[in-house]
């Protein structure tokens, strides 16, 4: 897959609490984009933001040449990024990294998302739907406001929900949801905070279930050149940007 640097223009924007959905249109046809891949966004006009920001791809519309990013405002960089206006140009390096391994038809698939980690699962679920692969979603947040676009996710598969404060779905963490007792899965895909991914990965090992996680280590280049974003694996330190961000949990020294 050829990587490219492209100026997208912001074609749509919607706020969800402290997160914002950015629809970005390219004048060129998009290259192939696998679910789980990410982009590196240049943040203009923020003196304290020197490096690009790695953001997962939330959705792709090949007809409109559009990609959608779901950006949570966590620092100066993402705050500036969230402040862009429709028509503004946004410089993006993409598509980066390796996506999720596609499951086989007939397998029981569970996508687990925590907080803003639900973002890449939307495009993934959409692609699985297009391929006729059924899936379930287990989405968790601190509170119901973290469960962005829940009704849209529910269109793509049976969705189970947990919130830490009990404001929606079952109260607690995703690992505590009753679905784990009622159903078994062949493949589990996880994206969320590292402690949550580790907890799900641990359950997967105990149940001897295949599991992939999507990591979001701090990055500089996004291309496998600077060696800053490494994760400790059975093969030593490897770059999350180049060999990930998706890893089979058996490869990780968790």
């Amino acid at each position, binding site marked *: 897959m050829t*990587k490219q640097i492209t100026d997208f223009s912001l074609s749509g924007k919607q706020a969800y609490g402290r997160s914002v959905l950015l629809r970005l249109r390219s004048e060129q046809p998009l290259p192939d984009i696998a679910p789980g891949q990410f982009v590196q966004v240049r943040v203009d006009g923020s*003196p304290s933001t*020197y490096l690009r920001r790695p953001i997962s791809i939330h959705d792709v519309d090949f007809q409109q040449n559009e990609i959608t990013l779901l950006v949570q405002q966590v620092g100066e960089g993402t705050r500036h990024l969230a402040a862009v206006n429709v028509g503004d140009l946004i410089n993006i390096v993409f598509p980066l990294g390796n996506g999720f391994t596609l499951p086989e038809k007939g397998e029981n698939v569970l996508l687990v998302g925590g907080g803003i980690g639900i973002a890449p699962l939307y495009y993934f679920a959409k692609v699985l739907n297009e391929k006729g692969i059924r899936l379930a979603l287990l989405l968790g947040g601190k509170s119901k406001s973290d469960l962005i676009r829940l009704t849209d996710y529910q269109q793509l598969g049976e969705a189970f929900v947990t919130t830490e404060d009990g404001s929606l779905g079952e109260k607690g963490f995703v690992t505590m949801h009753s679905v784990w007792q009622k159903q078994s899965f062949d493949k589990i895909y996880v994206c969320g905070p590292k402690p949550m991914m580790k907890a799900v990965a641990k359950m997967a090992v105990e149940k001897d279930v295949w599991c992939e996680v999507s990591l979001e*280590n701090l990055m500089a280049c996004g291309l496998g050149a*600077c*060696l800053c*974003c*490494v994760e400790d694996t059975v093969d030593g330190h490897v770059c999350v940007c180049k060999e990930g961000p998706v890893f089979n949990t058996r490869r990780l020294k968790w």
Partner: protein
Amino acid sequence: MVNMTIDLGRGLVLRNPVMTASGTFGYGEEYTDFVDLSQLGGIIVKGTTLHPREGNPYPRMAETASGMLNCVGLQNKGVQYFIDTIYPRIKDFDTNVLLNLSGSTLEDYVKGAEMVDALDKIPAIELNVSCPNVKQGGMAFGVTCAGISQVVSEVRKVYHKHLMVKLSPNVTNIAEIALAAEAAGADSVSLINTLMGMAIDAERRKPKLSVITGGLSGACVKPVALRMVWQVAKAVKIPVVGLGGISNATDAVEFMLAGASAIEIGTANFIDPSVSEKVAFGITDYCERYGFQKVTELIGALEC
């Protein structure tokens, strides 16, 4: 047509003054979607040591105002792996491929240099005596005249091609260090490596880097680098290769005016993966704009 050729001596001839800095450009392969390597004077591949190194634990990077700190710690698979696996893939790139060689002991430097000397398509070593992120060796050799003199003269005995020595800015008088490298047989010096720094997370009351300190790079270090290049270029007779915060062609021209014969682009590759090629074109534009026939006319042309 501006003549962009730079001859750094002992067989190292660059098609233009632009190279990419070690540790910021992988092995070149990571950037071929963005840059036509044949438009560059050279690429300097990731710092390599005789024995494999896992580097420092994560986190290894902290963003700073107009720059970044890193403490990668020379993660690499060793000289033999480079020779067996990487070299065959990159040796036919249509540009100069230089190897950045580092070590923990004098013996490691010498043995590594001997092995690299046998590689036909590597016209030069950039000897790294200035990495701030390793416990032994690395910068320790590069911060005293005696240390640099010893490592350069020993490597010189076994290495017969162009020997570039990369200098640390973490010294009191960089011109003295450069003179010591020159006297010990360096064909050129490149500077600056990263400046030692640190970053703290006040909310957690913890350092942001796993090994607490790291090397600062990016646009913020440019004035320091420019000053040091100017000081060194006045002191030595061998060519000086300037780097430190170069982000565009104007920055590159400034380094040449200060006395650099060639330049390296480092951290800027992370922000714009195609920047190196743009800088090469931009230097040509600058020469045309001011009527310079040869890019070498820029070297040390500062009027003061």
